[in-house]
């Protein structure tokens, strides 16, 4: 007798997050989110929607309905390669790519992104590298990424790495800027600043009348 995991297709309102939409909408231009007519142009344009667990359109619907958990842990936002086709073609001028970013940032902040999924790892590594040295060194980024996600891949890529190295397109030399102090003080002042407002920073529920 297997364990009861709850109704697969029954969603109790009490489990949804009524503030989720407003949180995402708090990014610049984010309130367009409320204009969505669910036409599906975004999903149709998206080169990766066939691989996503929810299509971009569904994500918008879910954000508006407050499916916080599902959205933040979905693969959709991470598979978004930010090619901006959705943003350009949306009939309601919703900047979907920005919304995906917002979701990604929330997911990372709250540590709910799909684990073992290489993309967030890449993001993190990239982020750290730049924080450290102001630039990103592709060779090291790749190495670290594969070590963290699947080391076997690293070997698979060896030959490619070699061929690139022979052509001087991949060097172990770490790229870096000179004036790191400057950079660090810039980034430090922004430590606690968020583009997606933490919930506590959101006002009372309900949109304000214009």
């Amino acid at each position, binding site marked *: 007798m297997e364990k009861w995991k709850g109704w697969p297709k029954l969603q109790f309102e009490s489990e949804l997050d009524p503030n989720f939409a407003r949180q995402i909408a708090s990014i610049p231009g984010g309130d367009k989110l409320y204009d969505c007519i669910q036409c599906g142009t975004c999903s*149709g344009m998206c080169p990766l929607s066939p691989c996503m667990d929810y299509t971009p359109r569904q994500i918008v619907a879910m954000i508006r309905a407050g499916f916080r958990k599902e959205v933040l842990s979905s693969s959709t936002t991470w598979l978004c390669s930010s090619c901006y086709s959705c943003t350009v073609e949306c*009939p309601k001028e919703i900047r979907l790519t920005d919304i995906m970013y917002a979701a990604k940032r929330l997911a990372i902040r709250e540590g709910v992104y799909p684990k073992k999924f290489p993309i967030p790892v890449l993001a993190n590594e990239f982020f750290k590298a730049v924080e450290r040295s102001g630039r990103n060194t592709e060779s090291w980024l790749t190495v670290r990424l594969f070590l963290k996600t699947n080391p076997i891949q690293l070997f698979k890529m060896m030959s490619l790495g070699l061929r690139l190295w022979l052509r001087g397109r991949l060097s172990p030399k770490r790229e870096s800027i000179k004036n790191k102090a400057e950079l660090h003080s810039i980034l430090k002042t922004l430590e606690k600043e968020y583009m997606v407002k933490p919930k506590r920073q959101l006002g009372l529920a309900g949109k304000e009348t214009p």
Partner: protein
Amino acid sequence: MSTTEIRSNGTPKVGVYVCHCGINISSKVEISKTVEFAKTLPYVTIVRDYKFMCSDPGQELIQQDIGEGKVNRVVVASCSPLMHEPTFRNVMAKGGENPFFFQMANIREHVSWVTRNKEEGTKKAKSLIAAAVCRVALHQPLERKRVSIHPDVLIVGSGIAGIHAALTLADSGKKVYLVEREPTIGGHMAKFDKTFPTLDCAACILTPKMSAVLAHPNIILWTYSEVIGVDGFVGNFKVKVKRKPRYVNEELCVGCSECIEACVYKKARVEDEFNVGLSKRKPIYIPFPQATPLVAVIDEASCLELKRRKCKKSCVDVCEPNAIDFDQTEEIKEIDVGAIILATGFKTFDARRIFRYGYGKYNNIYTSLEVERMVNAAGPTSGEVILKSGQAPKMVAIIHCVGSRDNNTNRYCSRVCCMYSLKIAHLIKERTGAEIYNFYIDMRTPGKGYEEFYDKLLKEDVHFIRGRVAEITDWAMTPEEEGKLIIRAEDTLVGAVRRIPVDMVVLSVGLEPQADTEEVRRLFNISCSDDGWFLERHPKLAPVSTFTDGVFLAGACQGPKDIPDSVAQAGAAAAEAMALIDRGYVELDPNTAYVQEDFCSGCKTCVNICPFNAISFDGDKNVAVVNGALCKGCGTCVAACPSGSLQQNLFTDEQILNEIKGVVSYV
């Protein structure tokens, strides 16, 4: 210079009547406070409030107070004067007082509907009431001027709306000028094959009306003509109409089309406007077999004779009635009419504007209008639905909302596309048996028998996919897709992206205002809504009137409409025009300018400034003289008068200055 003795009916006794308008006003305006405040204002003798001042009991209140001599001037604080000023002026009259001892304070549109809370609302309401009271105390008794109305009507545009309006008016004995830009009447409807939802043939129901127009003794039909000038005002418009030369004498031509046969152009080379470019015509042509009038027309752009004056004119030789006349020139007609109905219709959205849909880039992508011609038995393919290759399509996609519901093109829903797409789906299915895919965002079928028509299509196993098509390409990913047009869209009901290869695509293009709407709007001095359609006076209560009295709207020029709605609206417009004409006169507001001769310095500033030449100069008395019949009451001259001797009824300097005082200094 000016003095404050109150003319006419003695000491002002102002009655203030505050309307709750249900909760429309009372929800944002503290009525009781407002009433208390009003009591403190000068001359105010009575203040009352009531749920609906415009209702009979509400009006009763005012009449009684007037009747009992408690008040002789009235302020009603309620909605916009554009809404109910006439109503309450009548109340004054009924109560036995001059209707112009009345002023309205707009505390709904300008207060309760636009303020956040009661505090703000009440404050603003008070100030507006104070303004009205201060002003009304200085009002004077006035007479309305009556101007007789010219009984003829001008109708611009002869699509189904124009035609229906024309026939209705003509049948009621009115003389109608029907002006059409194209060489024939009929408009878009004449291009259609069948009409939804009944599927009766457009020609069968339209052509009888077209010939009726031609035959009707009360209708003067001017095709191939355009209105180029409009002067005057309600009841007495002076209109200039340009009749373009068609180089064929309408009276003589019998429409035998011998000339077309004979034209030196052996093959038709000119793009055929009527078949929206799907076929070619000759320089001399008759748009379509049932064209009305059935008269040939020669187009200057392509006719050899007209272009270079060297052609053997074989058309002339074959024309027995000698109707062809290359010396014909354009002709300007000047007419007087009392009312004008605009029925200038719409244009379809240019599908090239949406690059992703490849219109004009790939073969076999058609707009809905092109398909209408294609399925029409009298059309370029004589009713056959075929691809460029000549074969019949096996799979057809119909894409809804092309150019509609899109911030990058038109925000609005074009209202007819869902239904005509269903119709086209049915017709193509019927003609070819092809698999048909309808891509829609929302299926909109409100209307008598419309939903039923949708049901019918569902039973005809047409595919319906809820999803806006992302792109149409010739990029094949599978062998089945080779050589096809591939539709990529999300099936939103399934939640999966689908690639569907088809042979033919129909783009259901939306409706747009005519390209020259702006010029026409100016010509007739009316407004447009922000999406470019002609603006009606009131969306619900005056849907066919405009802000210019005597100018009415019919059909799609006011917004996307299907045939039933256009006809209904045309009827309404005709009725409005009729009502206006049968009354026989218009009453003009007496807000005209007048000269206080003792102050006039005879500087003549006003004489040149008046746009209507209503002011002349009396040399003997050395004063300006205003012609009340010509004055439209803009007050420009009054503002210009250096001596202040010119004044405007209902808007004298002291009245306005008092209103200013009231609006600022009490609250």
